[in-house]
């Protein structure tokens, strides 16, 4: 449905994103994971064609959706896709709704715009969608203002807006970051159900490995603006081959077993201005050798997954 190949993005002279590839089909959930600043949100923006708004441009690769290359699509045609066939759920539900408008009209507008429904039809559809998102008393909620609702509820409204025009692809950019843990689980489950019920292709952007483990079919691990490992979720979790993926998995808290302490990864993500040469992860990598600082690693394929590491062949012998 949606396939991104070797995507590169530049803002002026800096190149925060390069060589990102992934694809997602109907009824499938793809997880994009990585720490803050690894280029996850930028990838979402590129797919939505929003880069020109913030002064960025696509320098290479392609974003193919339903047989057409979106990187060459004019803005006017892009508008029909946005919200119509590709929905985006943004990070912060608290500020994603117009504070001066009631919920109903805000959701109605999407169906009016993309499906050409009139007022009453759009409202009926809105209430219907709110119902499927397990929002109690949709007709009452439609008359509320955003500030009268909780964060979890607002996130559901944002999801409702993304779904209102029945898109084929849904991109959820850290949809649970701003929410309580209990609500997080509900929202994730909701998204998971939507994929099954509506045969959606979901791209779930997150830094939470446990969420990925629960919901995704495939994952892409990103680091410093590059994809470092990708493959089916079971393979990646069972046999992570990139040291960064291994470290991320090692960081998942494992309950109240007092023998284990929480682990972290030493150091911080490099910023766009000081991306290391060679393998971007080498300054923090436990198994880095001289070659890592000079030569960028190629993807080494094993089964359905691939890892960009010079030592990917031996890496899974002893997971970190």
């Amino acid at each position: 449905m949606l396939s991104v190949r070797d995507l590169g993005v530049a803002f002026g002279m800096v190149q925060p994103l390069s060589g990102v590839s992934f694809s997602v089909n109907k009824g499938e959930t793809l997880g994009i994971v990585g720490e803050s600043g690894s280029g996850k949100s930028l990838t979402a923006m590129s797919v939505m064609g929003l880069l020109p708004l913030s002064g960025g441009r696509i320098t290479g690769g392609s974003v193919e959706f339903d047989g057409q290359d979106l990187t060459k699509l004019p803005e006017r045609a892009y508008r029909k896709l946005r919200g119509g066939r590709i929905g985006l759920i943004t990070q912060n539900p608290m500020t994603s709704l117009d504070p001066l408008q009631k919920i109903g009209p805000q959701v109605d507008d999407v169906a009016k715009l993309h499906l050409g429904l009139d007022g009453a039809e759009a409202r009926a559809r809105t209430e219907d969608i709110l119902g499927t998102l397990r929002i109690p008393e949709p007709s009452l909620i439609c008359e509320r203002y955003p500030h009268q609702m909780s964060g979890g509820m607002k996130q559901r409204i944002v999801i409702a807006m993304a779904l209102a025009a029945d898109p084929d692809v849904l991109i959820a950019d850290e949809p649970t970051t701003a929410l309580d843990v209990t609500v997080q689980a509900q929202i994730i489950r909701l998204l998971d159900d939507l994929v099954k019920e509506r045969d959606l292709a979901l791209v779930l952007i997150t830094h939470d490995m446990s969420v990925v483990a629960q919901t995704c079919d495939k994952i892409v691990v990103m680091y410093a603006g590059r994809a470092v490992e990708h493959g089916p979720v079971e393979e990646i979790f069972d046999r992570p081959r990139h040291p960064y993926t291994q470290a991320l998995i090692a960081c998942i808290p494992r309950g109240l077993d007092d023998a284990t302490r929480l682990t972290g990864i030493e150091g911080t993500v490099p910023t766009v201005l000081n991306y290391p040469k060679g393998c971007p992860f080498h300054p923090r990598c436990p198994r880095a050798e001289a070659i890592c600082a000079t030569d960028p690693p190629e993807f080494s394929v094993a089964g359905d997954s691939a890892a960009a590491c010079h030592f990917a062949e031996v890496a899974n012998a002893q997971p970190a």
Partner: protein
Amino acid sequence: MKVSSMAIRSLDAFARMSIGRALSSGIGMVAGGFLILLVLVAVFAPLIAPFDYADQNLMNANAAPGWPHVLGTDEFGRDVLSRVIYGARTSLSVSATAIAISMAAGMTLGAAAGYFGGFFERAVMTVVDLTWSFPDILIALIFVAIIGPGLTSTTFAIAIAYLAQFTRLTRAQIVRLKRETFIEATINLGAKPSHILLKHLMPNAMAPVIVVGMLAIGDGIVLEATLGFFGLGAQPPTPSWGAMMSSGTAQLFLSPWVIIFPGVAVAITVIAVNLFGDELIRSLDIRDRLRGA
């Protein structure tokens, strides 16, 4: 057509709710009540005024307040009360018309400049800032030189004098709002620029502009009076509070009522407009509004 009706509808609903709530507080009720009364007086001036504003009676010039001339008469023996009542027409209509023109033009220019940015924004803002560098009186003089003295010049002079304020304010609001997440979210949903601008940006940008507009009406009344005072505004015998005060200066010590009563009218009206404007600020905050309801 569709776009403009959309804009009017949102503006209308917005104004109705806020003005209603501004009226419901104590100060707001007194100030708003006075303004409503003033508008009624201006509209029904011919029914209320005891005399014709232009009727001269030189035999009875500079008569002190008493009966039948409750507020006395001026140097031509014209009834001061009648002239103050008719003067409300001039002051309110000139100021309100001028501010309405100024607001409409300023909001359009400011919103377009803020939304589209780039060269267009710089061009608009440079021109608008230029108007700010001229004193109001000078702008009025330019108009007087072009179209001659009178209320039309006054109206345009006031409109131009406040244009920069509305343009800058609207532009600043739009530039700030443009980066808000909910605007990004609207773009993500595929909205057209006209939809984003009229349905999301403008309503959210409007609150402070409306308040400044209300306060500017007060200033506009003063400016109209000033221009009238210098003889650049309303021409005789049309009564305007400023022009009345101007003619009254000649007999300031002989018949102070000629200058005092229009002065008091200006003062009370401006105070009422400002107080009401303050209440409006409070009532325009939607969160506050719903908490009260």
